[in-house]
């Protein structure tokens, strides 16, 4: 407890001064889930994340109480939705009378490592696919079932179930080859100052992480923990819903969840977190 408090204090100082203390780096705020999954919550920034030296999980910025909730699946309210996702996994739906399990069998085996590399290029379709797009492609074209709403509860449940199979693995999204143009477009969006407040993602999450903005402690806006359970609205929230909220807060016209713009932004933001652990479902205030 004391060690933890001391670590926190060091973290706070490091954030406040923008300095990284090499000596304490490996003992800074540890996230170990269920006493066994060791999460990388701070690590060296990938080369393409040019303006950051260190990338930091959103978990690090939350209060002690909120952090605790993510350390044990019995306390994590997001896990209820993973269970619901499991029901959906086994549920026969659509004209082909199939469930996800009909094709993919055991989610633990077939989906291990999947979340860590999404969004990614789909060669047949010739497009960058988010996990949500892939889930809906299966529903529509393999099952003959209705698509889930892009940020719906059912979509969030399914994303959470699939993500849990990659917990602890490093995010490792490809940024070159066929996805490069999309990645560049996402980067452009990240640095564009939108709305009447003329703010970009970078203004808040790159230039000011660690600072308070009114009552909010700004993080780096990483998405390794998505979908996240928020205490504020007591449900799982998808990355595109969060993007929409942040763009709205600049007094701008938002993009639509699932739009080409947000798909590109998701690829870019995910790539900024390459090296952090997949944490979903994480817990936020």
């Amino acid at each position, binding site marked *: 407890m004391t060690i933890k408090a001391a670590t926190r204090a060091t973290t706070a100082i490091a954030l406040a001064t923008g300095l990284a203390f090499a000596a304490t780096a490996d003992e800074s705020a540890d996230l170990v889930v269920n006493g066994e999954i060791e999460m990388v919550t701070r690590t060296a920034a990938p080369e393409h994340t040019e303006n950051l030296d260190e990338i930091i999980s959103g978990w690090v910025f939350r209060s002690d109480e909120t952090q605790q909730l993510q350390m044990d699946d019995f306390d994590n309210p997001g896990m209820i939705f993973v269970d619901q996702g499991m029901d959906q996994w086994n549920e026969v739906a659509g004209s082909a009378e199939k469930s996800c399990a009909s094709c993919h069998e055991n989610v633990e085996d077939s989906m291990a490592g999947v979340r860590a590399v999404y969004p990614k290029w789909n060669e047949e379709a010739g497009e960058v696919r988010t996990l949500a797009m892939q889930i809906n492609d299966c529903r529509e074209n393999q099952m003959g079932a209705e698509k889930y709403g892009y940020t719906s509860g059912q979509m969030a449940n399914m994303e959470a179930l699939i993500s849990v199979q990659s917990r602890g693995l490093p995010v490792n999204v490809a940024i070159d080859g066929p996805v490069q143009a999309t990645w560049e477009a996402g980067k452009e969006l990240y640095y564009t100052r939108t709305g009447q407040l*003329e703010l970009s993602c970078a203004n808040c999450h790159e230039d000011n992480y660690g600072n308070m903005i009114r009552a909010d402690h700004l993080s780096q806006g990483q998405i390794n923990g998505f979908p996240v359970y928020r205490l504020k609205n007591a449900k799982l929230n998808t990355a595109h819903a969060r993007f929409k909220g942040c763009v709205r807060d600049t007094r701008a016209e938002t993009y639509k969840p699932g739009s080409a713009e947000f798909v590109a932004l998701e690829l870019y933001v995910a790539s900024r977190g390459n090296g952090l652990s997949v944490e979903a479902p994480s817990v936020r205030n």
Partner: protein
Amino acid sequence: MRLTTTTLAAVALAAGAALANPVTPNDVQFDEYGAIPTSLTGTAGDAENGRNVMITRSKGNCVACHAVSALADVPFHGEVGPSLDGAADRWTEADLRGLVANAKMTFEGTMMPAFYKGTGFVRPGDGYTGKAAEGELPPILTAQEIEDVVAYLMTLKEE
């Protein structure tokens, strides 16, 4: 009594005339340092209302980014911008008017939003609805609210 009535009438007249014709956002004249030497309305600012604009989320919400010791009773001050304590010692009224109207004229590329600017936005929205703005966007603060905030900032002296 008589004097007061006359004075009040004169003030009301002046205010009426000024309100009918404040400088529009597109016509604001900044000097080379980003200051605005003349009042936007011709009516003196009301510091008390300026204080209110500074702490109200839908108005200036200045405390979202700035700490102000004189506003210690208002919870949650931000750390994005510098503390505004002693702002009136560092800046003239003209400087402050320029900073509040459009701080980008003083600090190039600053994160601080322009509170009196009409055009030139990327994807302007209708307030905080996330929907597209319809028609021309009114500035975030009115000309008189800018004057009111400047009047409040002029009270922030430490020396």
